[in-house]
């Protein structure tokens, strides 16, 4: 609070952390504003948990600085940092009751018994666990344990709340409920949260900001929409949702548009944000849901940016139907929502795939 509201609450400057020959975190820098929920996202082993542990103080970086609310805390042990962690396995103290777990940090800080009691009560209510204070952790369900862990972490009013894959031990429905609840709590209390997960859907749905990591390196930082619609590279594109890639070469430029040649034919699309010239090789990134399907025979020659293919599999997944389409050498995935309205193409039928004019791409 000393540094005022606008400065970032957390700054990581050029963090490097290696275990033996493995570089777990490689030159990572980034800053986080107050009251935001940021997610470190990436496959297992990408360094996201290590980065979180650097922030919490459980891992000391080989190089770089951790600035927490304007203070350099790089060499400070976890017990001297204003961060609180919710562990993947919750790490509830099994020899203590729920209330004792939540009150532990306050007890360590020698708070009075009355103060602890009332605060524990408040926190229990906050996570909707009223009346369960005398239970032991093993008498709770996974979701309840999660809430206790959350309450315990909140008990110290940390500057940043760190959540390490907190939902991975819960079953699917509970996971969705809990993540909504965490988001609500974060908004209501104005918490700053770092959330670590490998689940891209979870990350998209909960975050203000995503930090996508791979092999110790930050691949992209951006809002969920940015990351989804404009992935910075092939890895990010691949990791976030299903994706189709088309390799293409620029043929000609004309005003705002340009002509492209891909394996399946020619396309006319909007120019990308980066400068391009003819003969440049690019990679097009097309989400399955942004491809329209039409009857190939009927529409041939009548619409722009149509390529042809044959439906190999049509898989009905309830809200959408997912087509696996062979087009030349390539397999293309297309999702169509509301199949009842749009009609279902039969397996084996020939279809036309219509690409939009605005296609995200990057240089190869």
């Amino acid at each position: 609070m000393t540094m005022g509201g606008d400065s970032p609450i957390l700054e990581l400057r050029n963090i490097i952390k290696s275990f033996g020959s493995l570089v777990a975190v490689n030159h990572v820098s980034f800053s986080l504003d107050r009251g935001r929920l940021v997610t470190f996202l990436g496959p297992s082993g990408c360094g996201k948990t290590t980065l979180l542990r650097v922030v919490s103080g459980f891992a000391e970086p080989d190089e770089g600085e951790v600035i927490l609310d304007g203070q350099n805390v790089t060499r400070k042990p976890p017990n001297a940092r204003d961060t609180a962690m919710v562990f993947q396995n919750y790490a509830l103290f099994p020899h203590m009751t729920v209330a004792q777990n939540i009150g532990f940090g306050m007890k360590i800080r020698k708070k009075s018994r009355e103060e602890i009691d009332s605060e524990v009560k408040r926190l229990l209510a906050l996570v909707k666990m009223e009346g369960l204070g005398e239970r032991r952790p093993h008498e709770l369900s996974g979701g309840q344990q999660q809430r206790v862990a959350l309450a315990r972490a909140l008990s110290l009013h940390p500057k940043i709340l760190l959540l390490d894959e907190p939902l991975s031990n819960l079953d699917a429905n509970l996971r969705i409920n809990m993540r909504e609840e965490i988001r609500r709590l974060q908004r209501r209390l104005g918490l700053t949260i770092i959330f670590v997960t490998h689940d891209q859907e979870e990350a998209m749905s909960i975050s203000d900001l995503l930090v996508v990591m791979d092999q110790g390196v930050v691949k992209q930082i951006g809002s969920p929409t940015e990351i989804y619609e404009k992935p910075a590279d092939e890895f990010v594109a691949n990791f976030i949702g299903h994706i189709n890639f088309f390799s293409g070469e620029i043929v000609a430029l004309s005003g705002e548009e340009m002509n492209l040649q891909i394996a399946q034919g020619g396309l006319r699309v909007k120019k990308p944000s980066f400068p391009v010239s003819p003969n440049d090789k690019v990679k097009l990134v097309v989400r399955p849901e942004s491809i329209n399907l039409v009857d190939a025979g009927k529409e041939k020659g009548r619409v722009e940016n149509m390529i042809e293919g044959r439906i190999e599999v049509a898989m009905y997944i309830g809200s959408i139907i997912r087509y696996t389409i062979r087009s030349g050498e390539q397999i293309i995935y297309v999702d169509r929502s509301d199949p009842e309205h749009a009609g279902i193409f039969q397996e084996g039928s020939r279809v036309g795939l219509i690409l939009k004019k605005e296609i995200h791409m990057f240089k190869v």
Partner: protein
Amino acid sequence: MNNHFLQNLAKDFRTFLRSPGLLITTSVALVLLLLFIVFPIGAVLLKSFTVTYPIVTVSSQNKVSHRADSETGVTQKILASLKPVQGVVDIESTTEEKSSLIIVRFQKNWDDLRGLNDIKRALGRHKEELDQVIEKITIRMGKKTFNSLATYGEFFSKKYYYGALRNSLALATTSTALIVLIAFVIAYLGLNGPAGVRAPLRVLTLLPLIAPPFIFSLSLILIGGKQGFITKGLHLHFNIYGWPGVIIAQVITFLPLGYLMIENVLRSLNPNLDEAASDMGATPVEILFRITIPLAAPGILKAALLVFICSIADFGNPMLIGGNVSFLATDAYLLWTSENNLEMAAVFCIFLIIPSMIVFVLHEYILRGKMYTTIGGKPQQVEKRKISLKIFYPMMGIAVPVSLVIILCFGMIFLGAFTKILMVNNTFTLEHFETPNGIRSLLTSLKFALGAAMIAPIIGVTLSYILVRKRIPLKKLLESIALLGFAVPGTVMGVGYILFFNSPPLKLTGTFLIMILNEAFRNLSVGLEAGVSKLHQLDVAIEEAAINMGASTFQTFVRIVLPLISSALVAGFIYTFMVGMIAVSAVIFLISPGNYLASIYILNVAEEGFLGMACAISIMLIAVVLACLGALKMLSRYTKIAIFARGY
């Protein structure tokens, strides 16, 4: 609820009777367990409730024919002449038409030969008088056993006896407390200390495992005895015999056991809990006392209970260095060898069993499932943080002196073995190694240990399979019996075997076989426990798949289960072998002249004062054990079978 239990029992019995193979295997196992564990212990129990008196029977053929005449004429005369005999407690008489029978009961422990002679002399004094009425008189000595609580009464009336109980309890409590403290410190340092400290501490702490259990008494005598290294070197009037000696020796002897168990507990604690506490602002010292110790407490208590059992059952250390202090386990042996007082020995055994049983029941049933180590899913790997110096220095203050004592003890054994008489004549010599009897005893030990190690794991592992996978009635009871052999102190099993196998139909005392059987059945539990834990890890589906492919239960066991749990067999084998090589407490009751075991031979030689020779044989014994373990390791590398599970 009771009804439910009975219904279940009936159901179990019905399924059980339907499979003949299981029926036979289980019955054989049960018979073996009864014979070699339950009955001997039962024999001890029965013996403790009896009193045997020396008796002399006087039977006479009378010249007087009428019964009443016989009574007054003969019986009363004999009775009158026997009145002044010393040591008589009770005289019973019966008179028949032409004969009388008089049974003279002497005090317990009365010299029966003296009684016989006294009676002969007493009757001789009235010879002329008696000759007139008696045709023939026969005098025999014998023993008569009564059911009685008198031995217990005697136990509590003499300080010499009940003192042994008090001493044993005091010793076990003290040793256990010290061992738990030291083992915790070393285990903690071994896991969290600086890398340079971890390995040496671990190796030093485990070193006593390979040594005969009383070797430290031997070296303590070499250090602090009358001719001891320190006593003599510093001209101290200090005596290591008695309490200080036994306690130090036991602490070193049982430290590996405590250490292995506590280390295991600490290792299995979820490291994220420490981190969570640290995250909440707790300092390392606060984490140690508020998180680590409370979490490890049930495991530590378990370790303490086991150490307690071992300490109270310890035989070698009190024997060698106990001095004038009496302890149950050893004094039971002395009561038998020097006084042939098996009844009091049996009572001693009962007082050995009671605390062991209480502790064992606590350990097996009350603490079961009270561990905090399995809660909360898989912990994440964590980066070890540097140990706080506020913890490091005090802990090193405990660990370093203990390590030094262990090093010193081992060193003394070597010095003792290679010098003529340590501190008297320090010239180098190999003469202590020239001991044909010692070497013969080593070979006997090898045969003995291998024999027991062949039997114990097979029975143990088979039993574990029946217990874990099969529905059999009264499962719990069977398991408890199998574990009993381990829980009951060796002295009790020794006395029990003497009592039970001393008479037909199973007169086995004095044979080599009975020694091996005794050792094997006392160590069933290792193979059993290893098998149980292995089987719990093994998915039943694997066996179901085999049965699904048409294999019988037996084929499944032999072809699928055994190979998969072979490590349990091997663990049982190695444990039984190592324990067998250094066994003292139970077998000492059973050895026969030709079958001296090295460990017992060392004990005897040491007691007679040949400390150099005792050291030399100890070194050879350790060498043999290490060589065998080395051979096994080579074998495991060769066959690719995992022999050395953690902790063995």
